[in-house]
C-alpha cells in the first residue's frame, strides 16, 4: 500500500503545481514509512517540505497555504501525535468555510498512519478516527487496501474540503494488490460492498476489513451463512444509504472497528441503521471493538484489537438471536 500511496502523490504532484507535501521527515528521508519516497528528489524542497518538528504549525501553516490557494498534503508522523494539532484541525481546517461564509475554504489533506497490531509503542498504535468523524466540516477517509488507498488519496487531494486520511500501519507493507498505471479516483462519502451476502451485514474499514472478510469466509464454510461485508472507506460523511440497504436485506448487523467502543464510530453506524432499517432488524446490532482502555502495550494488544475469532463469536450470537 505504501507504493500505491506514493504513486498517488507522485501523479497528483505532476498534474498540479499547487500540490505540496509537508511534514516531519517527508523530504530527504522519504517519510518514516516511505510514503513520500523520491518526491523530494523529483520536486525539490519547496514542494516537499521537511518541516520543523511541530504538529500545530504543520497543520497551521498548511491552513495558510490552502487559504492562499495551494493544496498542501500534510503528514502527521503518527496519529497519536495529532492531538498537538487537533486545535488547528477542529478550530480552523473544519471551520474556515463557515467562518468566512464561503469566501475561503481549506482544500488540504492531512495524512496520518494509525492503528495497532504492529508491535509498536504507546501513541503509535491507536485508532482515533472518531475524533475527526465527529467534527462538522471535515471528511474522514480510511482505505482498506492499495488500490482504494490510491484512488481515495487522489480524490482527497482534489476535494475542495479538508480531508483527514488515515493509513493503517499494518497495511503499509502487508497489503499487496495490482494498481493500474492510469490515475483512478473513488468518490469520498461512498462505501463499497466488499462481499455480497444475504444473512448478516459485517461493517468494517481499514485493517478490520480483512478481519471481517476472513470471518465471512469462515461463516460460509463452517456455518453455511452468507455474510455481506461493507467496506466503509469514508467514515464521515457516512454512507448511510449503503448500510441501510444492506441491513434491510440481511436483518442483522455486526460492526467491527479498532477504536474503543464507547462513543466510537460503531455507535453512529448502529444509530443510522436503526433510523433506516429498524423494522428489518432480526437481532440487536452488535459491535466488536477494542475495549474502553488506553493502549495497554503491545504485549497485551491481542486481547484488545478485534480478531477473526471475536468477530465470528459475536456474529454467531447475532445469527442465533
Amino acid at each position: 500500500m505504501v507504493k500505491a500511496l506514493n504513486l498517488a502523490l507522485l501523479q497528483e504532484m505532476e498534474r498540479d503545481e499547487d500540490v505540496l507535501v509537508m511534514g516531519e521527515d517527508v523530504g530527504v528521508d522519504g517519510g518514516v514509512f516511505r510514503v513520500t519516497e523520491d518526491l523530494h528528489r523529483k520536486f525539490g524542497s519547496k514542494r516537499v517540505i521537511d518541516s520543523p518538528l511541530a504538529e500545530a504549525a504543520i497543520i497551521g501553516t498548511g491552513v495558510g497555504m490552502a487559504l492562499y490557494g495551494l493544496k498542501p498534503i500534510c503528514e502527521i508522523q503518527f496519529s497519536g501525535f495529532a492531538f498537538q494539532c487537533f486545535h488547528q484541525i477542529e478550530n480552523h481546517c473544519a471551520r474556515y468555510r463557515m467562518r468566512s461564509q464561503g469566501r475561503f475554504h481549506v482544500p488540504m489533506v492531512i495524512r496520518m498512519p494509525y492503528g495497532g497490531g504492529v508491535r509498536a509503542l504507546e501513541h503509535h498504535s491507536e485508532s482515533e478516527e472518531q475524533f475527526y468523524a465527529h467534527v462538522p466540516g471535515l471528511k474522514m477517509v480510511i482505505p482498506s487496501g492499495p488500490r482504494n488507498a490510491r484512488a481515495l488519496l487522489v480524490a482527497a487531494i482534489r476535494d475542495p474540503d479538508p480531508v483527514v486520511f488515515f493509513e493503517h500501519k499494518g497495511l503499509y507493507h502487508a497489503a499487496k494488490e495490482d494498481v493500474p498505471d492510469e490515475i483512478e479516483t473513488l468518490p469520498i462519502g461512498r462505501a463499497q460492498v466488499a462481499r455480497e451476502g444475504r444473512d448478516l451485514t459485517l461493517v468494517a474499514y481499514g485493517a478490520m476489513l480483512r478481519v471481517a472478510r476472513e470471518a465471512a469466509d469462515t461463516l460460509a464454510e463452517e456455518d453455511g451463512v452468507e455474510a455481506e461485508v461493507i467496506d466503509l472507506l469514508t467514515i464521515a460523511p457516512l454512507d448511510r444509504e449503503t448500510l441501510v440497504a444492506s441491513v434491510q436485506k440481511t436483518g442483522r448487523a455486526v460492526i467491527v472497528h479498532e477504536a474503543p467502543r464507547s462513543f466510537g464510530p460503531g455507535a453512529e453506524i448502529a444509530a443510522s441503521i436503526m433510523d433506516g432499517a429498524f423494522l428489518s432488524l432480526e437481532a440487536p446490532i452488535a459491535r466488536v471493538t477494542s475495549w474502553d482502555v488506553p493502549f495497554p502495550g503491545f504485549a497485551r494488544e491481542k486481547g484488545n484489537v478485534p480478531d477473526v475469532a471475536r468477530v465470528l463469536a459475536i456474529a454467531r450470537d447475532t445469527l442465533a438471536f
Partner: protein
Amino acid sequence: MYRGMLLGRRLDERMIRLQRQGRIGTFAPIKGQEASQIGSVLTLRRSDWMVPSFRETASMLSRGWPIEKLLKFFAGYLEGGQPDEGQNDLPITIPVATQLPHAVGLAYAAQYRGDDVVVMAYCGDGATSEGDFHEALNFAGVWSVPVVFLIQNNQWAISVPLKKQTHSRTIAQKALAYGVPGLQVDGNDVLAVYAASREAVARAREGNGPTLIECVTYRLGVHTTADDPTKYRSTEEVAEWERKDPLTRFTAYLKKKRLLEDGLEEAVDAEIAAAIQRFEATGAAEPLTMFEHVYAELPPHLKAQREQAAGWLREGENGGGTTAAPRETSPPMRGQRATRR
C-alpha cells in the same frame, strides 16, 4: 492616520453603548491601542495580507471592512466575518495565537507563487505564551518568509499581568531565539509604530524574512464587555496610562504642527451613525443558511437535517414551539464570567 485612530476610538465607544443596550454581543474594545493598529496597518498595500486576532477593529476598518459588517459580526452574524472578494484579510480569529501559523502559511504560499506580498499578523502579549506563537515564529524563521508579527503588548491578558505571563524582560527578545529580528517600540506613538512597521514590511518585501514588533501599549478599557477590570488592576495604573493616551498624544502633536483638520470628529460620528442605521436595518438571520458553508457540496445527512430543521421552523411559526430566542445579555468570552450590573 489620525482619522483612522479617531474612527477606531469613536466606534469603540459607540459599540460599548450598543453592547450595553443589547444591540450587539460581547466584543473586545481597542481603546488605547489605536496607534499600534493604525501605525502598523498603514504600511501595508492593498495586495498584502492582514491576519487579525479579535481586537483589531481599527486595523480592520483601515483595511476597508465596513463598520456595519463588524457590527454584524458582533451581533452574531457570520456574514460580518466574510471578507470581500479580493480583500486579502482573514476573518477574526478567536482562539489565541492560532492565527499566527496561518500567516506564515500565507507568506509561504505567496513566496512559492512568486507574488509580491507581505503578511502582517496581529496578536497580544498573552498570545506569546502559546505554543502556536513559538511554532509560527520558528517556521517563519526557518523558511524566511515575508511575514511581520505585530504584538500589541497591552500589559494584561484578561486579569494576568505581563510579569506573570513571561519572565522575559521584553517580548521583542523572544524573536532572537528564532533568528528573527525583534523590535520594541512605543505602541502609543503612532509615528514610531509606523516607522518600525515600515522597516519590517520593507525587509519582508525585499526577501529578507520575518520581523517581530512589540508595541508597548495599554488596554485602557475592559478585556471584553463581559470583563470587570477593577477586580485585578488599580485605577491609579489606568490613570497613569490614560496620560499616555495615543489619541491625545497625536492630537496634541498635530495641533502643534497646525495639521489638524476641523470637523473631523463630526464627520467620523456621522459615518458611524449612518453605518449603525444600515446595521439596524439587517433582517433576521435565516437559520437554514447555516447548512450552506459546511462543505462545498451538502452531503446527504446534512440535506436530511436541513429538511428536519425546516420542518421544526415551520412548526414554530405555526405556534408549535419557540425557535427564536429573545436577545439576552451577551455571553462571556474566554475566561470570563458574566458580570451582573
